């Protein structure tokens, strides 16, 4: 097993972000399990216990995957180097993205309802290529705003065309 890894001055995101993922997964799990159960109950002529078993199985499987978020969130990190922003994420499927600052088109800071509950924000660094998809979730307090201003400042000094 030879994994890719890049040494660097990594900054981690808040571990609380795992809770955000878990809550989001839990909400979806309830919705999907409920919907599946309802469809099975009304459409097919299954016994009540079978429907309940299937719904619970979906719920448990999704919650189990949500629990993995605690491990996954530890792998999310970012590093600001002189010329580029390096973002990593993923445990089994690892992904490292390096974006030169000059490529910044827009920086988004977003906050969903679950994130608001936990006082976390997500920062999105948008380039002209749709595939770049650089997001840094789980930034607590005003970290996201601070990071955004930092990125905008450094990007302005290295602005380049498309």
């Amino acid at each position, binding site marked *: *097993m*030879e*994994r*890719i*890894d*890049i040494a660097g001055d990594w900054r981690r995101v808040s571990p609380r972000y795992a809770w955000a993922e878990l809550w989001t997964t839990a909400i979806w799990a309830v919705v999907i399990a409920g919907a599946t159960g309802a469809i099975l109950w009304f459409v097919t002529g299954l016994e009540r216990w079978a429907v309940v078993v299937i719904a619970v199985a979906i719920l448990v499987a999704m919650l189990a995957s949500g629990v993995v978020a605690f491990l996954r969130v530890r792998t999310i990190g970012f590093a600001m*180097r002189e*010329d*580029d922003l*390096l973002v990593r994420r993923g445990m*089994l*499927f*690892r*992904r*490292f*993205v*390096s*974006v*030169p*600052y*000059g*490529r910044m088109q827009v920086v988004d800071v977003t906050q969903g309802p679950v994130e608001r509950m936990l006082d976390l924000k997500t920062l999105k660094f948008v*380039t*002209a*290529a*749709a*595939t*770049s998809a*650089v997001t840094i979730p789980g930034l607590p307090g005003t970290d996201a705003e601070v990071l955004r201003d930092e990125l905008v400042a450094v990007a*302005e*000094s*290295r*602005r*380049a*065309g*498309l």
Partner: protein
Amino acid sequence: MSEPHVPPDEQQPAPPAVTPPAPATDAQATPAAALIAPPSEQPPEAAQERARTLVDGDWHRLHPATPLLRGGLAVIVVGAILLNSLRDRLIALFLPAGVDYDGDAPDAIEAAERLALNGTLIWVLLGFLVVLALCVLGFWLAWRVHRFRVTGDVVEVQQGILFRSHRRAPLARIQGVNLEKPLFARLFGACKLEIQSAGADANVDLAYLRTDVADALRFEILARAAGRTTTQQHQQQGSHAQRVVDDFLRPDAELVGVAPTSLVRLKASTVVVSSLLDLGLVIGVLASIAAVVAMLVLDIPWLLFTLVPTILSIVSITVRTLSRKLRYSIAQTPDGIRLAYGLLSTTTEVLPAGRVFSITVSQPLLWRPLGWWKVAFTRATKTTDASSGQQKQYANVLLPVGTLADVDTVIGLVLPQLRGSRLLHDGLLGIRAGDEDARADAAVDADGSERGGFVTTPRRARILRPLSWRRNGVALGDDAVLLRKGRIWRSLGIVPLARTQSFALHQGPLEGALGVAHLAVHVVGSALSPTIGALGVDDAQATFARAREVVPAAIGADTTETWHVRTAGVGEEPAPVAAAAAPMPAPHAASSSVDGSAPHDRMEQHDVTHDEHRGEPRP
């Protein structure tokens, strides 16, 4: 030397494409004079003069035939067909009750007589005339409100009666200028000027304009986009007369005066043969033959009903693609790469420097014995296809078919550093340039002059690329990253480093087990980014690490925002050296010198910064 494309509407005294305040040009540009006088006597400045009046910052209208070309004709034709087929119904509608009308000739005449007698016919005719007049009025109004203007740094288009739209596009952001001459529009001497900006629906279409005006207007727009303030540098050489004749003979005629002729000569036979050697086409033909044989031998005549449409569609697709490829030419002009192609409907495009985001060189299987390749490129905009009217999905052809030397020439236009390099050669033909050799080369070539070879899939991971594992590889030069793939369907992706948006390194669990990873280069304008898989972990990480150093450097050194500085001297006088040369750290710092300003501010600064750059020595 007949000129079937001389527009009939030009016989009107004042072509409305030029608004009244242009008395100076009236004398030469009077259309009647153009028709009577032999073309050789027409001053070459006429079109230039017209273009200059078009870009004076005032609003101008389009070619008077525009409503007709933009669908007005279709409306008339459809209306006529409807009227014709519904004639009987219509007459029956106005008939007095009790008359049995079934459309037979004697009855019809009788019915008409009755109508005429009781006065209905007049009303019917009047109604028809009113509808016709309304249509004409509508077209005329639409034409009246459809206006454009070109100011110092933006081009604006206003159109629409009920649904108004007003589009402004900054000239500094132009991705290319496309001149299309659909066959039908050519009959009116009209053509379509498409000013391309980055984005899915961000082009500014000036459809339709007078052909000679559009040619000159393009130079004006490109000149302004490049930051030139004067048009004098673009005085066209060569006689205007020759260009008029050439227009029908060559798609790139209007640019011959300023640009050298095509760098690549494609024989028509090559283009035809290469089109016929399409795998899909061959399979289709073979299947058709098999079907005919089966039909005759097994005696199943109904097969004909499926066969005929299939053959028809195969033929029409082949003819259409073929007519697009014929009369291809490519050249380097001061404003960028000029592409021209098309047999009946022609297109000429000018791609300013730095508007090619990635290149794909590939070799269809059947071309392999002949050593032919094709080159496609990605741009940040969508264009419409003149012949079919369909939107091409970002990918465009740089070279429809060509030998290795042609490919080399064409790529040299985009990335001069790659021209004739070993890297390019290995990328196209190499199978085992990688491995130990490559690593040794990379170590030796530490000065970065020409990085040797490709790093390829390690032996342990050959199960992922059973056939092509020795070919599958990546090379990172100082100017471009090359992705080499495919043993049977050979292809080479080239991305200029100055155009890459970001780099990514991925690894899934299976890849982890095999000790490999894959590398993606994110570029503008393609739904899928160029990727290369099955690279050894150490190689992939080394490439990734090097990309993080080289890419920002390449972006910083990119001078395409001021491309006229870079390409000055190609087919034109060198840019005049202004006395007020601003002290710049280095010519290469051009693109990064406008720091501290938001994008829109930058556009307004454009003229200023370019004036500064003009004084610099050419890099």
